[in-house]
């Protein structure tokens, strides 16, 4: 077995420090590549595929065309109409990386990199002083961390060895055996639930959520610290029925599990624009107002679920 199969190495697309929306305290978030879902609105499209792709960013390109001459595969060419548009022939590109290192403007870039667990630990340990002071730590996100489960588990186990608090952010599209493997090394599970209705889920995420629902019930019995998050995507997830259904499902599973709503962020659209891709919503779609969000929270509360607002859990009855 190679290092990827054993989980000694894996593919990530970013490590961000000073993340403030991925759990308590100040955290570093490791974004892993690969996801079993294919949500239309995904705000980390680079996390969907597990393989590494080469991208060209015309906003950075200085049209020097060094890349074209350096490519041993002759996979790069200048677009006919614009000097700062470089076409990548993916059938020729073997991802050798020469153009990436040669590009003086960093306009050619891979959307991921192969790293070892050790390298990740070395990077996240740089902010240990901040984690200690803030009761923060490391969050694994993605993509879907379970997609590279051996790698994810080894990162989390190494974090525990280092005394770093761990959170995993997952869609739970995985097997029970996988969940079992993570119970020991995860301090808190953040579960993203998008759509409750089975057919709609399949249409908009290209995955069946029966597995997710069953896993959620299973996880709720096994671990204590769980947070559910619903991304508020206009037209897709942010409908009163959907929110009500998810809330009811969570409340009947375990009423102390809180739900947090994540507002739509129009900036995510930018990633699609930079990659010349269509986005599911127009640029005129705005985030929800505080009043609208409060209305959604009211639906959740009526369904009997606890809510999280501004990181504070609000429950109807206090849990013993």
């Amino acid at each position, binding site marked *: 077995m190679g290092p990827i199969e054993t989980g000694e190495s894996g593919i990530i697309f970013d490590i961000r420090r000073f993340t403030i929306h991925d759990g308590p*305290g100040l955290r570093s978030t490791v974004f892993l590549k690969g996801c079993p879902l294919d949500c239309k609105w995904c705000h980390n499209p680079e996390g969907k595929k597990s393989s590494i792709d080469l991208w060209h960013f015309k906003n950075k390109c200085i049209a020097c065309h060094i890349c074209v001459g350096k490519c041993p595969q002759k996979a790069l060419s200048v677009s006919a109409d614009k000097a700062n548009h470089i076409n990548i022939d993916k059938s020729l590109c073997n991802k050798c990386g020469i153009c990436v290192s040669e590009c*003086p403007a960093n306009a050619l870039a891979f959307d991921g990199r192969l790293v070892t667990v050790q390298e990740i630990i070395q990077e996240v340990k740089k902010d240990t*002083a901040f984690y200690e002071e803030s009761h923060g730590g490391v969050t694994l996100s993605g993509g879907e961390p379970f997609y590279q489960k051996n790698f994810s588990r080894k990162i989390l186990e190494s974090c525990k060895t280092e005394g770093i608090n761990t959170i995993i952010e997952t869609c739970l599209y995985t097997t029970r055996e996988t969940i079992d493997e993570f119970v020991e090394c995860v301090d808190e599970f953040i579960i993203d639930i998008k759509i409750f209705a089975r057919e709609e889920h399949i249409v908009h995420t290209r995955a069946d959520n029966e597995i997710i629902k069953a896993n959620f019930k299973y996880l709720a019995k096994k671990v204590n610290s769980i947070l559910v998050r619903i991304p508020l995507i206009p037209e897709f997830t942010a409908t009163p029925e959907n929110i009500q259904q998810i809330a009811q499902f969570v409340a009947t599973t375990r009423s102390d599990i809180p739900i947090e709503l994540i507002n739509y962020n129009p900036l995510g659209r930018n990633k699609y624009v930079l990659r010349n891709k269509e986005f599911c919503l127009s640029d005129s779609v705005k985030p929800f107002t505080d009043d609208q969000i409060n209305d959604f929270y009211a639906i959740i509360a009526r369904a009997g679920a606890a809510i999280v607002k501004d990181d504070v859990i609000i429950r109807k009855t206090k849990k013993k």
Partner: protein
Amino acid sequence: MLDYNLYLDRLDSIEPFGRIDKLRKHILHEPRYLSIEQAKIITKTYRQNEEKPRIIQRALALKNALEQIEISLDPQELIVGNRSTKIRAGIVSPEAGIEWINKEIESLPTRAQDRFNVDNKDIIEFRSELYPYWHNKGLRDKIGQVLDENMDDFELAVKINQKDHSQGHICPDTEKWLSHGPSGLRKIVQGKIKDCDISKRDFYLSVDLVLEGAIRFMGRYADLAKRMADSESDESAQSSLLEVSRICKKLESSPPESYHEALQSLWFLFVILHMESNANSISPGRMDQYLYTYFEKDFLEGRLTLDRALELTEALWIKFNHIVYMRNTKSAKYFAGFTTGFNVAIGGVDDDSNDATNLLSFIFLRAQDQVRLSQPNLSARIHNKTPEKFLNACIKVIGNGGGMPQIFNDESIIPALTNKGIDIKDARNYSIVGCVELSTHGNSLGWSDAAMFNMVKVLELTLNNGYCLLTGKKLGLQTGFLYDYKTYEDLENAFKTQINYFIDKMIKACITVDRMHAAYLPSPFLSSVMENCLDKGRDVTAGGAFYNFSGVQCIQVANVADSLAAIKTSVYDEKFVMPVTLLEALRKNFKGHEILRNRLLNKIPKYGNDVEWVDRIGQKWVAYFSKEVGKYRNARGGLFQIGLYTVSAHVPMGLNVGATPDGRLAKQPLADGGLSAVYGRDQTGPTALLNSVSRIDSILASNGSLLNLKFLPEFFQKESNIVKFSSFLRTFIKLHIHHVQFNVVRREDLLAAKKNPEAYRDLLVRVAGYTAYFTELADDLQDEIIRRTEYGAD
């Protein structure tokens, strides 16, 4: 001490005061004018006393000004006193230097930075009465006569400060002033005159003269307030004026007893200090500590409500904005936006290293949040035992914008001060003077802004055989060209040689300037409130203070680290560019070398991203500079020490520097602040930046250091983020960084304010250790602030 926790909710609920709001609007909308009134009194005094020693001339000039200058007060004011009838007037002080005013008087209303209106009548009087008398006689002229004639060239690399004004940068012994008052101090001085050594007699006589003037000054305000009360029809205005009159009358002969009296006494001290030394950064220091007993006594005995204490505090906060310091055009670029520097410190540790936060600390924060003007410069001292409530209260005020309070770290600053031989008790009681300059309280002439050493320029000269890239002039030593240095170590050695050359010249110039101040600007009033001066019988400018330092600034860590990292990688390690090509590219400002410039910018790591080897380059050169500077003694027998801050000088100092190997174009600003990364280059977030900054040895920066961070206002709208921010600051304490401050502002608002300044008159931004009105800054500085990296968007 009473438990402040009991009063914090009440304090938060106090509504803004109508009286304060009126005074505040006045400050924002009143045009500034040049004032030559004091200059005329000074000139007349000198004409009448030509034969007297300088210190007596100076004392008489101040005394006459205190007794004769036109005074005014606003019936809304609870704290009174100013050195001009108009607020924010630009004062001409002829003893310091008048040549620049002669050259610039017509352009003062239209210049790019720090404008003042000028009456035609004043121009005529200036040219006919003042200029002819002072031509060639001021401090600036005398310094010019003894310094090298090539100073202008030298100053492209090292700017020597304090050449045409008093140097300020001092925290007077406020406790002594408050406990004795001018009458009490006069008794001490008169006791000394009787049997003093003849050599000290003029000094004591001069102190006696200025204190006599100070007493009369207070009395004149008592009389004026009384006269205004007599003709006042409104009953509450009348009683307010009568109270002001009573207090001023009392302060003539007695020390203050109540909180109101203490605030008034303190303000008189600062007005008079500014009349004697037309300077910036004369700072009150730890007001929450030395005013506390006055406050607590009144408060506990029921004479003072919390509301009234806040209103009185705000009345003083307003007064701190009435005095601005007018600089020459060049200097105004380096210290843009009226850096008057009434620095007030709150919180911190006491003599025994316990937390010293008290209810006044919170009252001052609340006053700051309500008044929101550029002065005072509020500084919060924090340490391992700072209470969470105080830290959170600070963060909430920071989150509302305006850049205050700025944050100082007792845990790193106190060791840095004791490391320079300062007694531990004095170190624990440190104050900040001006922006971020560190000083002990009431016993030190720190001469904090002696010079600014442009390391980036010296590096440029090292690469180009001593020749300026912009003008071709020879400024440094001929140590060779970049292509002559066979190894990186050769380059480093040449850099050391150049640094030593410039340090030596800088020190000599600083000593000259210092001596000239002692000769031409002795300051008897300041000496009366400076520990040891009265005992020694020696003026503060002549070394009378207990501590005597000189501070020189090392500018700028980020650019030096980025540039050397770029050379090391591109020329010596990876060898992707020939040294001759790189030098050629720099000479051409990268014209025709755009690919190389992009490589240097994008392919080599930059300071501020937690890349250890790059940060260590910055550390190395700060340490080298500190070691070399530390070998010298100043004119007053004290040490030279280093600071890592620029005020706004990163913009004009950048104008002096050609293209740099890190890909920066010629004349672009240097990194802001002092320890900040080059704007936009810190791409790894604020924790990475703090880690990078912590690699620079803060213990060496005993003159002070500065770090700017910019956050979005949205970040502070969530309660949970305030908690996160608080732990961010607690980690900052542990990382032993001296200082950090925050601009909390949206880029869009800054852009809108640039377009439509009238609508954004009160938009405050943090420039560098001080806050200024954004719309009062020159274009290039505005642009630089807009370009700084924003955090907290996520």
